[in-house]
C-alpha cells in the first residue's frame, strides 16, 4: 500500500470509533435535552434549573472545585520541585506519590469513609486523646462543614497525583543550563522557581489544570460515598434524574449544563495560560 493512502487507513478505525461513540452521542444528548416529545423546547432546562436542588448542587460543585484545585496545584508544584532535586530514593518517592493515580474515586471515597465514619479512625484518635467522650457522627447533616472537609480531603488525596505526573514530566523538559546560569548570577531558589520554572512550565500547567478542572466538575462517587444525599453535586443530580426519576430528558439537560461549564472553564484556562507563539522549549 502506498504512503499516501496508508495513514488514512491507519487512522480510520479511531476516527470511525470516535464519530460513533463520541460525536454522535453528543448530537443525541443535545436532541434529548432540547425535546420533550414534540419539537424543540427549553422545558427540560427550565425544569432542571427551576428545581430547588439545582442552585445548591451548582454551588457545591463550584465551591468544591474552588477549594480543591488551588490546593492541588500548590501541592503538586511543591512535590514536583522536591522530586526534581532528589538524588536518592527518587523512584520510590515518586511511586508512592503516584499511587492515588490508579485509585478510583469510589475507592478514595471509601478510604476516607474509614477515617471519618462514626466508629472510624478519626473518632478513635480523638477519643484516645480525650478530645471527645463519645464518637461523633461527623458525616451527618449536623456537621455540613466536616462533610465538605472530608470530601475535599478525599479529592485532594486522590487527584493531586495526576497533576504531579504532568508537572514532573514538564519540569524534566526544562534545560538544566537555565538553572545553572541563574545560580551563577546569584538567583535565590525562590527566584529560580518564579522566573524559570513557572514560566517554562506553562504548557504543562495548562494541561494539568484543564484535566483537573474537568475532573472536578465530574466529581461523583467520592461525594456519594462520603456525603450520600447530604451534599448534592451536579453529577449526582444527573444520576438521580436518570435513575431515581427516570427522566432522561432532564438528565440530558443536566449533562449539557455540566458540559457547558467544563468548556467555559477550559477556554478560560487556555486563555489565561496561553503560550506565546514560538516561545516553547
Amino acid at each position: 500500500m502506498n504512503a499516501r493512502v496508508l495513514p488514512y487507513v491507519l487512522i480510520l478505525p479511531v476516527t470511525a470509533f470516535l464519530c460513533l461513540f463520541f460525536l454522535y452521542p453528543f448530537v443525541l444528548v443535545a436532541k434529548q435535552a432540547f425535546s420533550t416529545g414534540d419539537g424543540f423546547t427549553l422545558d427540560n432546562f427550565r425544569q432542571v434549573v427551576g428545581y430547588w436542588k439545582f442552585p445548591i448542587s451548582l454551588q457545591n460543585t463550584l465551591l468544591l472545585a474552588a477549594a480543591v484545585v488551588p490546593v492541588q496545584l500548590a501541592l503538586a508544584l511543591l512535590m514536583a520541585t522536591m522530586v526534581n532535586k532528589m538524588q536518592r530514593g527518587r523512584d520510590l518517592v515518586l511511586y508512592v506519590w503516584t499511587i492515588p493515580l490508579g485509585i478510583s474515586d469510589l475507592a478514595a471515597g471509601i478510604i476516607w469513609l474509614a477515617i471519618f465514619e462514626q466508629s472510624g479512625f478519626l473518632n478513635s484518635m480523638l477519643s484516645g486523646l480525650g478530645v471527645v467522650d463519645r464518637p461523633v457522627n461527623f458525616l451527618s447533616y449536623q456537621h455540613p462543614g466536616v462533610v465538605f472537609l472530608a470530601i475535599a480531603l478525599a479529592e485532594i488525596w486522590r487527584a493531586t497525583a495526576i497533576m504531579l505526573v504532568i508537572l514532573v514530566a514538564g519540569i524534566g523538559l526544562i534545560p538544566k543550563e537555565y538553572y545553572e546560569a541563574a545560580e551563577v548570577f546569584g538567583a535565590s531558589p525562590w527566584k529560580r522557581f518564579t522566573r524559570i520554572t513557572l514560566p517554562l512550565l506553562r504548557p504543562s500547567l495548562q494541561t494539568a489544570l484543564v484535566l483537573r478542572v474537568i475532573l472536578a466538575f465530574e466529581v461523583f462517587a467520592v461525594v456519594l460515598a462520603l456525603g450520600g444525599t447530604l451534599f448534592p453535586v451536579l453529577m449526582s443530580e444527573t444520576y438521580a434524574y436518570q435513575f431515581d426519576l427516570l427522566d432522561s430528558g432532564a438528565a440530558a439537560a443536566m449533562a449539557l449544563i455540566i458540559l457547558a461549564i467544563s468548556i467555559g472553564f477550559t477556554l478560560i484556562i487556555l486563555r489565561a495560560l496561553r503560550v506565546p507563539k514560538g516561545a516553547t522549549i
Partner: protein
Amino acid sequence: MTPVTTDVAAPDTRRAGRYVYIAAVVLLCAWVLVPLYFLLINTLSSPETVNSFPKPFLPEFDLGSLGFFAGFAGILTALKNSILVAGLTMIMSILIGAPAGYALSRFDFRGKEAFRLLILLTRAFPLPLLALPLAVMFIQTGLDDTVFGLSLVHTTLAIPFAVLITFSLFSGIPLELEEAAWTLGCTRLTAFTKVVLPLILPGITASAIFAFVISWNEVFAAAVLTIENRTLTAFLLQNLDTSPLHLKFAGGFILVVPALIFIFAVRKYLFAMWGIANR
C-alpha cells in the same frame, strides 16, 4: 559576592533546610500511605471489629470481612464483569488506537491537525456523560446491560490516551531503523513486525495496562449502563446506602489492589507517557 558569603555563613541553616526537606518528603509519603493503611486494617479485621469502637491501629489479620465480601450475593459476578470489561477495553483501545499513533508519528498527511484536534477534544469533555445518550442507543441495538456495550464506552475514555501514548512511543523509535530494514529486503509490514514491534512492546503493554485501570476505576458510565450485569464499581455504588461497613471496606480494598500493582508495573513509563502526550 553574595553566593560566597552565604556559603560560608550558612552550614547550619543549610542543614536545617535539609531536615525540613526530608521531613516534608516523609510527611507527604505518609499523607498518601496512611489512609491506605487504615483501609488495610479494616479489610483485615473481623466484621465485628470493623463495626466496633474504638478502632485498633494494627490489623488483626482476620479474613472474616474478605470472606463476607466473597460470599455476598452477586459480588463475584460483578468482579468478573469488571475484569471482562477492563480486559476488552484494554484490547480494543490498543488495537484501534496504536495504528493511529503510528500514523501520527510517521506520516504527514492532510487533515493531520484536524485529527489531532479530535483526539485532544475528547480529553476536554466530561466523557462519562456520554453514557446517558448511549443508554438509549444501546437499548435499540440490544447492547444495553452487556459487558461489550460498557467496554465500548470505556474504550472511548481510553482511546485518546492510547493514541497519544503510542504516538510518543513510536516517535521515540528512529525512522532510520525502519528504513534500514526496508533496504535489507523487508516490506513495510515485516519491518514493522520485526524491528519496531519488539522495541515498542513494553511501552504498548504499559499503555494497555493504563487502559485497563481507566476502565476498572470508572463509576458513572458503569452505573448508568448496567443493571443486571453490574461491574464491581457500579455494584458497590448501588449498594452504598444499604451495605454494611465491612462490605464497603473489603470492596474498596479489592478495587485498590490492582491499581497498586499496575501503577508499580508502569511506573517507568508514567512520566514519558504524560510528558510527550501533552505536547
